[in-house]
């Protein structure tokens, strides 16, 4: 389950990012990184020995807690939204994409885009 869940989540993101059968391009790296962070975080939390009082803390938390909170919960926060923004024009939505959609609307229903409003 520690591996299956990240697989499921990253697969869903990839599924949404793939456009018309093309590859995800530059998004492959952030997706792979996030998969590694989340899977690695879960597995490391299971593999590390239990923390005890007096053990060294990682950024203020016991090691296994730090792995979960920082590795799984915090780092992907910085990776994914930035990856989305930085690749948006090239890989997600351009003005040409919107024009094509509006043209399809006109072709299908014979009305100008958003003319129903």
């Amino acid at each position, binding site marked *: 389950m520690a591996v299956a869940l990240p697989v499921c989540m990253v697969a*869903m993101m990839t599924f949404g990012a793939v456009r018309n059968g093309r590859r995800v391009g530059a998004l492959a790296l952030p997706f792979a990184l996030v998969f590694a962070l989340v899977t690695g975080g*879960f597995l490391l939390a299971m593999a590390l020995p239990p923390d005890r009082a007096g053990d060294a803390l990682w950024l203020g938390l*016991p090691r296994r807690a730090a792995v979960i909170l920082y590795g799984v919960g915090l780092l992907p*926060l910085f990776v994914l939204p930035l990856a989305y923004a930085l690749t*948006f024009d090239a890989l997600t939505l351009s003005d040409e994409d919107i024009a094509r*959609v*509006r043209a*399809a*609307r006109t072709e299908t229903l014979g009305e100008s885009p958003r003319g*129903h409003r």
Partner: protein
Amino acid sequence: MSGVSGIVALLQSAAVPPLAKPVIGGVAVGYFIIVAVIGIWATRKTKSAADFFVAGQGLGLFTLAIAAMAATLSGFAFIGGPGLVYSLGLGAVFIILPAALTNSMGAWVLAKRLRLLAEVREMITIPDAIGARFQSPLAQGLAGVAIVLAVIGYMATNLLALGLVIDAIFGIGRTPAIWIGTLIILAYSVSGGILAGIYNDVFQGVLMAVASTFVFSFALQAGGGLSGISQTIMAQDPAILGPWGKLTPLAALSFFFVFGLGSLGQPHVAHKFFMLKDARRLKWFPLVMTFALFLTLLLFVGVGLVVKALVLSGRMAPLGTADDATPTFLLQFTSLPLAAVVFSAVAAAIMSTVNSFMSIGSAAITHDLPVAFGWRVKDELRWGRIWTVVLTLGAAVVAQASGTLVAFLGVFGWGLFASTLVPSLALGLNWQGATRAGSVWSILTGLVITLTLESLSFFKVFSFPSGVTATAIALVASLLVFVAVSWLTRATAAATLSPDVRAVMEA
């Protein structure tokens, strides 16, 4: 997350300590006045059903992101969540942990498709999107039924929580407090519709984020920093800071699955994508929403852990109930004005969530169910207002019932949304091989399994093993049914896809 409000609704039903202090009451009154002013302004701008249900499709990025964040979080983020961290430790954090992924995942999987659908079709509701994608009034109607069933329970749990907060502030008794809270939300929602809701969401969302950030800094100060908090807890109750807290790994990971994937089926958040004025503004949506969500959830983790440390070190008396964690910390370790703002923020979080449910519930009745029967309500604005009142009053009556019943209704809300809507939205909008039959059967599967398993569990016919939830079972089952039925009926896939919708899916 709003799902949190359903799953752990019971946790909200514990009363916060009486706080009849003038400062808290004064700030709360000031807060309600601002909400009323925004409602009056929005009422003047609401002139059509499109204004009422989708804010005239004229929102900017910041407004969309903050409103979506406010609708996502209910009062649970401030009261039940920290209480859960106090009692279960890091295991409770697995409810919010998927937020690191879900905002971006939702942007890739849903946001662009839904916003582009609004470019080519008249989109008022999420079932509209399902109906357009599969050219199926039946699928749209079934999705509408699921939304109405879930919304009543969700609204009841949140109205009960709002009543408890108002009672704690003004000391007027639970029943009057529920009705006063209900009437305040109704006043601005019925007149100003989602437009009033959205701009109140923005005000409420900013309030929640700012209050949470301040409280988090007070928490670190009171506990001697994160290291001080950790050392205190590790010395006496190390399980709290284990990677799964006091849950089993299976239970913690099950939270991660349900609140992660299930986030793709929350209509009160997803339908806000229709409202964005310019589709290209989605570029910065995940970043803005994630940042706002991160700030707002600091209180969830920070207060839960610091209160545990304070109790273990003897600086705070043991709590009567876990839900007392936030109110007790606020009153003992922060300034009174900040405590007052946070109590208003709790009310704000609840009200923004309820308003969103009002909107999608009345839209489902006014718009989606008639479409399923092949007709269209003539004056959707008028009937939208009428059904908003009926649904809300119905939920307020339910909220007076036993806490257990209300909790039960809230529990299946999240599961019903997730199991009925995730397959048709997340898979359906991205997979051209999906079929109408796949959509219809997956929605039916989600409805039947969720209602059956939750009812059997409620009546104690059986109990699930630790870590297994009805929501997870129903979600997995409806996804499998969606894929299997679509594959079996794959010959019909092309026929259920109109050219303009195909263009949206290929964009």
